[in-house]
């Protein structure tokens, strides 16, 4: 196959309004790639597939890459020279520049008919936040169908004209894009809202109002009227004759105990106990 420069020039002639840039790869693999503009991506893709001497009929691999915005420090030498004919004026200046972030999609193309490849195409979104739309190449190569869905799912690139753009690996209700570099894992993957959320919120308010009284006197009936009464009688009372302890039945009225000793453990259901409090 011809070199990448030839291919670039051919595309520039065939699509004069498109922008095709060679992205150099400095690694020993020397797999350089073509950066093409999104608005011409599909016609260029179709051209690459249908030209008789290219026949890139097989799109092997589709990859999403996240490039967050980063600060670049550039060193700039002042251009003007000393009018007196001396050395250059001023010192080197370091300028901080914010390189905007973008999402990138890489397509590895091969030809099954002619056995050559890879030709690597790159597409870039305008930013990472709201302008993340790229043309889908699934109408050109069916093999992009699931791989583009995966990039939509994990990176958040929106492929225009994709026939079935849904999440593929994460569940449908999932909100974020886990393969982005700034993704933060939630504390609890399993948490999800239930219809009982309002009930639990009410209970939380209820327990919060209850806590000081219950902490002061565990096992006693709280003073506030809204709190529930203890559901069972206090603990067994020693008989005056020194015989065995008798557990009083529930119906028997017992004199209210105002100050229970701190060590007394009553079987009262204590809603303020920390173990009984629901997880928020």
């Amino acid at each position: 196959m011809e070199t990448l420069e030839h291919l670039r020039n051919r595309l520039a002639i065939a699509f004069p309004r498109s922008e095709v840039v060679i992205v150099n790869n400095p690694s020993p693999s020397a797999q350089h790639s073509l950066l093409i503009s999104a608005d011409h991506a599909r016609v260029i893709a179709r051209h690459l597939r249908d030209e008789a001497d290219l026949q890139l009929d097989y799109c092997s691999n589709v990859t999403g890459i996240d490039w967050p915005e980063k600060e670049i420090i550039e060193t700039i030498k002042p251009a003007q020279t000393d009018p007196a004919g001396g050395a250059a004026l001023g010192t080197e200046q370091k300028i901080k520049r914010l390189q905007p972030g973008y999402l990138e999609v890489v397509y590895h193309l091969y030809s099954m008919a002619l056995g050559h490849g890879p030709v690597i195409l790159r597409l870039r979104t305008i930013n990472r936040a709201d302008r993340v739309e790229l043309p889908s190449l699934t109408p050109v190569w069916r093999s992009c169908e699931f791989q583009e869905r995966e990039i939509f799912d994990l990176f958040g690139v929106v492929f225009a004209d994709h026939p079935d753009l849904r999440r593929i690996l994460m569940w449908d209700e999932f909100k974020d894009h886990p393969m982005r570099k700034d993704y933060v894992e939630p504390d609890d993957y399993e948490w999800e809202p239930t219809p009982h959320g309002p009930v639990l919120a009410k209970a939380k308010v209820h327990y919060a109002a209850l806590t000081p009284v219950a902490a002061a006197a565990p096992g006693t009936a709280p003073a506030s009227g809204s709190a529930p009464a203890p559901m069972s009688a206090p603990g067994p009372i020693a008989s005056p004759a020194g015989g065995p302890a008798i557990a009083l039945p529930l119906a028997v009225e017992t004199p209210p105990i105002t100050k229970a000793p701190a060590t007394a453990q009553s079987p009262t259901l204590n809603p303020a106990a920390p173990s009984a409090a629901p997880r928020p």
Partner: protein
Amino acid sequence: MNELTPPSFNPPSGAQVRAVHDAFHGDLLEVSMGPHHPSTHGVFRMMVTLDGETIVKLKPVFGYLHRNHEKLGENTTYLSSMPYTDRLDYLNSMTNNWAYALAVEKLAGQSVPERAEYLRVILAELTRLLNHTCLAGFLLQDCGASGTPLMYAFREREKILDLFEALSGSRMMCNYQRFGGCRVDPSPEWLTAAQSLTDGYGRFLDEYESLITQNEILMARTQGVGVLSPALAVSAGVTGPMLRATGVNYDLRKVDAYGFYPRFPFRVPLGDHGDTYDRYMIRILEMRESITILQQAFRTLPSGPIIDPKAKLRGFRPKPGEAYGRIEGPKGEIGFYLISDGSPNPYRYRVRPPSLVNLTILEDLCLGQTLADAVIILGSIDIVLGEVDR
């Protein structure tokens, strides 16, 4: 070439699409097959819409085994991703290792000594035997031949797994390849054992084929079922035995000539019909060719180091750049795309999973077939969910 759009947007005409709610036909029935269904080979789910017994729509549902393998790869060093690749396609850890090692070697410009290349070929072909043997067993199991063919297949598979265990210490999670070579050198006893297994494997295939290949039920169940056209297969990126069953001659061992495959003459079997029977037959024939390659490799295995002495494993930091390396795995093209930013971890680590891409055409193959055929078609695609979901 015409556009090959997904079937949901270009509904197929013919018998399988007909009016519902008419006097003769009842409603469509939607069935969720899986994720816990024995014939889905793992936790895979198919949402099947049935008209009677005929499939009119099929949507695969993925993600039940998703653990974001690629993110794990970005958060660990190059070397510590190697054992993770075992867990992709857990039947074929040796070829996963090789594909990853090849991509890293391309990225770093690392060379591999001769003996290691031979060992890689030997282990990859043993893996191919293992995978295709398993597939033949599973496929027959899916057809309803309960137990016996699968047990015959697993008997042979265990022999290969014993070899892997003796060599790498683990039956399935081998973690054997390294950047620039292999991890341990096989002993002469191991080589003798592997050679005798290879020499005897043809007899197992003869036995298996005499039981299965001409079996009338298998032929009735698989011939003409799930026909894949070559044009769709190429467009959908189908690779491996599935592609070659449609008659497209594309084998990366020949096309890319990676490793030392050009040194071993072998034939690439091709199918004619692209149906399930062809897919079964291609795998049997590929096993015969693998035996040929193995016998040549054992005969000519050179001595020498198994890893490049200049290879750096710990503290490995390739220069910035990127590389895509791919090999012909037993299931198809398995590739790794790596981007390095000069740090010990890859900036981007991408797996090109053959199982996932081969599933693209599942709906196309199943439309108009019965639900029982969908099970066989899925079995003949040969997926492993560890690789589909990653």
